């Protein structure tokens, strides 16, 4: 050590700790204890019938074993019809949903729409998203009867809510100078959308659409459970008849299709940047 640093030895040593999220110690530990106790109490409140679980394990094992020998053939006409119906529902509802979602998204973007239109469109989206697909499907089956039409309408509605909300958020995040620049040339509103907004949100729209296609296929295989068409109905029947081999075959098909969609969507989303 040389002479100049020798004097700094007298300096007080200063320590540092990250400031805690909740300043007050009592609150900090009090909340921690409260939530721990609540979690334990909540968990204990479940009544578990262990004998039932023990019996159920056997049945579960039967089901899992059936994946080793899935039965595609016995019910093949039913299975293929269900799968095709699901695919039809998926594609039609995705396309229809996207087309209807785009104007709604434009209205629900605060930087494009006047306040009244904005609130109206956001309101529609909120109501739309508040209801789960299954609940909507039950309602649609009640209105339109059993069959794929109910499923198509259900998934179209939920696609609208999904795409409109996320697309509107992307529109709100566009670069303001780019938008200003096109506006300042004297362009009309639709020209402005086409030249300044659309190029900026297109990758997101394509990404969302493909992702939604994926979601819609998975949903369409559930909707059959409430009678809204698709392979879910076939799956439900298989379970009801304890035909686990057939059920396994259907589930394997669903997994395969979802995996293909996953791969394709990943590929396309990587391409559009």
């Amino acid at each position, binding site marked *: 050590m040389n002479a100049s640093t020798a004097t700094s030895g007298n300096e007080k040593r200063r320590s540092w700790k990250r400031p805690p999220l909740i300043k007050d110690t009592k609150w900090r530990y009090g909340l921690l204890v409260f939530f721990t106790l609540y979690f334990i109490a909540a968990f204990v409140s479940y009544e578990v019938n262990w004998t039932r679980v023990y019996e159920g394990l056997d049945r579960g094992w039967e089901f899992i074993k059936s994946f080793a020998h899935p039965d595609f053939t016995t019910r093949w006409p039913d299975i293929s019809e269900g799968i095709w119906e699901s695919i039809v529902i998926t594609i039609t509802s995705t396309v229809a949903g996207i087309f209807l979602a785009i104007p709604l998204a434009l209205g629900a973007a605060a930087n494009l729409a006047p306040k009244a239109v904005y609130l109206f469109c956001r309101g529609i989206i909120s109501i739309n998203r508040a209801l789960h697909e299954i609940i909507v499907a039950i309602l649609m089956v009640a209105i339109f009867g059993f069959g794929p039409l109910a499923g198509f309408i259900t998934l179209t509605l939920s696609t609208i809510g999904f795409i409109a909300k996320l697309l509107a958020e992307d529109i709100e995040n566009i670069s303001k*100078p780019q938008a200003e*620049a096109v506006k300042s*040339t*004297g*362009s009309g509103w639709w020209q402005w959308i086409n030249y300044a907004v659309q190029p900026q949100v297109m990758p997101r729209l394509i990404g969302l659409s493909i992702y939604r296609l994926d979601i819609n296929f998975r949903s369409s295989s559930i909707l059959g459970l409430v009678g809204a068409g698709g392979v879910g109905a076939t799956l439900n029947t298989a379970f009801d008849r304890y035909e686990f081999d057939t059920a396994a075959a259907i589930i394997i098909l669903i997994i395969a299709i979802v995996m293909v969609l996953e791969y394709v969507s990943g590929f396309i989303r990587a391409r559009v940047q």
Partner: protein
Amino acid sequence: MLQLENLGKRYKTGDDALKGVNLDIPDGQLVGLIGPSGAGKSTLIRCVNRLVEPTTGTVTLNDVEVSALSSRGLRKERRKMGMIFQEYALVDRLTIMENVMSGRLGYMGFWRSFFRKYAQSDIDEAFRLLERVGLDHMVDKRADELSGGQKQRVGIARALIQDPEVILIDEPTASLDPKTSRQIMRLISELCRERNLSAIVNIHDVALAQMFVERIVGLQMGEIIFDGTPDELTPEVLTQIYGEEDWEATIEEVDEDDDDTIDKNSADEKSVATNT
């Protein structure tokens, strides 16, 4: 002739960005607008084409009172006002040609613009302008593939294809290196002279402004406190505008270097092109 009369802007936050600015800019004059950050420079030029709505006063461009126009009339009048931006503000995912052509949107119908069926005369003019700024060989490139200086050249072409009567320029060189900054400012001043355009350019770089503009307006707290030639910009005046600092180095005469060969060449091509 661009006339600003008692132009004022109060933002919703209660800030008075502009306090009754009076400014006349004759045809063909390039005015440099200097002043500290927050002095109201951006607000002033955005009030001209009403990207920001002025709260008081009038803007008049060649006897048309811009500040009184309906939204339809404003859209028509905006065609006469080109704008060049700080971060270039090109639409990244559009091609160079589409970016330039967005300057013609006010002159064409929606479907024509939607299908990119541009008029042949517009296409000719776009190529002529891109040639003038040295970029006619890359019309199909996407805007985000260009360097900063190239982007700003496209921005200039987009403003000029509007066939404007005035150009509003917001910090054109703020994101460029010193050499490119000079090239861009030189290009802007040349083009304004060629086309007898009046222009307001917001600029932070006082030395650069002195090199290329013929008149300097100093803005502080929303008020004009200096209006004169570049020579009249003394350390005292700069102290008045920006506050106390050693200004001698800033306004020292800067030597022109020979980085402008491309511009000169393309200027010659331009004169050939206009003759044919």
